[in-house]
């Protein structure tokens, strides 16, 4: 277990965490402002990835394809909000779970009808090779790009939420929706916008992770649960919490998977460690989440004071 391996795995963790953040940011706002459980958020991630794959193929350029996929996914998200999700805000959580679960099935099948079960999407040629980060430590250039994009989007999001008027309204909505409405904020319109924005972030994550994780039907279902873990740990409705939670979950998950089996081998028999290690690593983030919920039910950075 060398230093370089640790560094490499930490970068992988950061990369995964930042992509999780793109998903979690939209989800936490939806959850925080409208108190709405949206299981279909993972479907937007999938639709974004398929759109990107199609547009990359059509334009022949990775960058152009991804850039075009972002507004397209935002449009899909806003359409979904206006047509179905809007009517669910006033309903109880149970109805929201059922309706958005239904949307997962519907969107999965629609994607299958339009695109089939999967689409090829590969990293741009120029970034296919590794970069020499440190002497003796090559790192895939494409993963570095993901980290760069993730950081840039996180910064942009921070700027929008913390410094602009629209961000102020979003924060107001998240911390006290009724008060924001009483002060004359048009929450409905704001919310369609937030939803479109969330879908755009999903598309970025889907497009960037596509070459690594494969673009296929059902790709949103497991990552959605991770995004929920993130926002519960971070505090529902809090962008800052989502960022901290994402990086935490990304790190714990990736680094745990890489090192727990090694670590266990120091203490127990290798065969047993090999069997139990991966399970322990997968379980770790849920243990963290259950712990946070038990001791700090509001999450690490509660949005409501």
């Amino acid at each position, binding site marked *: 277990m060398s230093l370089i391996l640790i560094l490499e795995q930490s970068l992988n963790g950061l990369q995964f965490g930042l992509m999780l953040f793109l998903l979690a940011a939209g989800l936490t706002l939806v*959850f925080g402002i409208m*108190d709405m*459980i949206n*299981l279909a958020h993972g479907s937007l991630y999938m639709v974004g990835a398929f759109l990107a794959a199609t547009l990359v193929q059509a334009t022949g350029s990775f960058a152009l394809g991804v850039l075009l996929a972002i507004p397209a996914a935002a449009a899909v998200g806003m359409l979904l909000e206006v047509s*179905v999700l809007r*009517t*669910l805000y006033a*309903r109880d*959580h*149970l*109805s929201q*779970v*059922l*309706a958005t*679960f*239904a*949307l*997962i*099935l*519907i969107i*999965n*099948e*629609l994607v*299958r*009808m339009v695109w089939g079960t999967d689409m090829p999407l590969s990293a741009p040629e120029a970034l296919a090779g590794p970069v020499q980060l440190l002497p003796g430590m090559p790192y895939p250039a494409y993963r570095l790009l993901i980290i760069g994009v993730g950081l840039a989007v996180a910064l942009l999001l921070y700027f929008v939420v913390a410094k602009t008027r629209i961000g102020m309204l979003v924060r107001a909505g998240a911390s006290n929706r009724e008060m924001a409405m009483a002060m004359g904020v048009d929450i409905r319109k704001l919310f369609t916008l937030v939803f479109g924005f969330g879908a755009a972030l999903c598309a970025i994550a889907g497009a960037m992770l596509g070459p690594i994780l494969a673009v296929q039907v059902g790709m949103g*279902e497991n990552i959605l*649960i991770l995004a*929920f*873990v993130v926002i*519960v740990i971070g505090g*529902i409705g809090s962008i800052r919490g989502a960022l901290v939670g994402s990086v935490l979950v990304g790190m714990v998950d990736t680094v745990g998977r890489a090192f727990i089996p090694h670590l266990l081998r120091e203490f127990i028999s290798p065969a047993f460690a090999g*069997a*139990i290690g*991966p*399970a322990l690593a*997968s*379980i770790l983030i*849920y*243990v963290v*989440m*259950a712990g946070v*919920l*038990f001791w700090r*039910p509001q999450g690490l950075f509660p949005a409501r004071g």
Partner: protein
Amino acid sequence: MRRALTVGVLLLAIAFPLAMQAIDQTYYVTMASRILVYALAATSLNLILGYGGMISFGHAAFVGAGAYTASIMIAEGMPSAWIGWPLAMAVPALLALAIGAISLRTRGVYFIMITLAFAQMIYYLTVSMKAYGGDEGLTLTQRATLGFGLDLKDDATFYYVVLAILVAALFLVSRLVNARFGRVVQAIRENESRMEAIGYPTLRYKLIAFVLAGALGGLAGALLANQNSYVNPGILHWTESGKLMIMVILGGVGHLYGGVFGAIGLLGLEEVLANHKFAWLAALYPDYQQHSLLGVGVAMLAVVLYAPQGIAGLFRRGKDG
């Protein structure tokens, strides 16, 4: 009137395998057993979700734990249902006790999320059980043995055993929710702080309901594993928990037969859309049977938007009107 209806439906259910054998369509007997098993699982969830107001998003973990316990017993050479099935209730009950003791201290969406987290932990545990198939799952060499000359390998016998268990479970649930215990649990759903203020140990009541639901769910899991002669971690996936919730909501939250209606409704719809060719649909989209889940999704969405009381609610409205 109501009792006559119940007896009538029960007689129909008893006659069903005979009728299917007569017209040589025994496939439907297997299908019906599957529906009854899911009805049991959904009924167990309805006990906490409907009557207790506890929105557990991890019920598949208990069903799965029961399925794995029953399967492992068979794989280890102890096929007797009299040992395997009670154990398949005890293990999920213990899990529910531990999970409930922690989860039930949280409220609202946090409860939904923490039950989901625990279910995910158990899901990954089963994935890692390499000795019992891990990811690949575990194929059973035989079904459980029951004695008394009953052979569970026979699909009609299996159907009757499942039917008997479901009827017993429904009877138990109906007695339970109308007993003092059930009244208290329902009152906690309506106003927990008031129940606490008048001196009820609310956490203990909720926990008992949670453990009971886990045990019944585990029994459903044992039956499911026996029917398929196969179990894999997929049975614990979060979408399975979602499916059980859907059955409960579709059928009727907090209605005695909600789980039964929901299982019939959802699985029946899946079956009809996937295996029957409707000419008008085929004209619209030739390959529609490949995409039957689309129809299921649309139907579910329609139920939430237009019939929030579920199938049982439709009956109720008919009676009032």
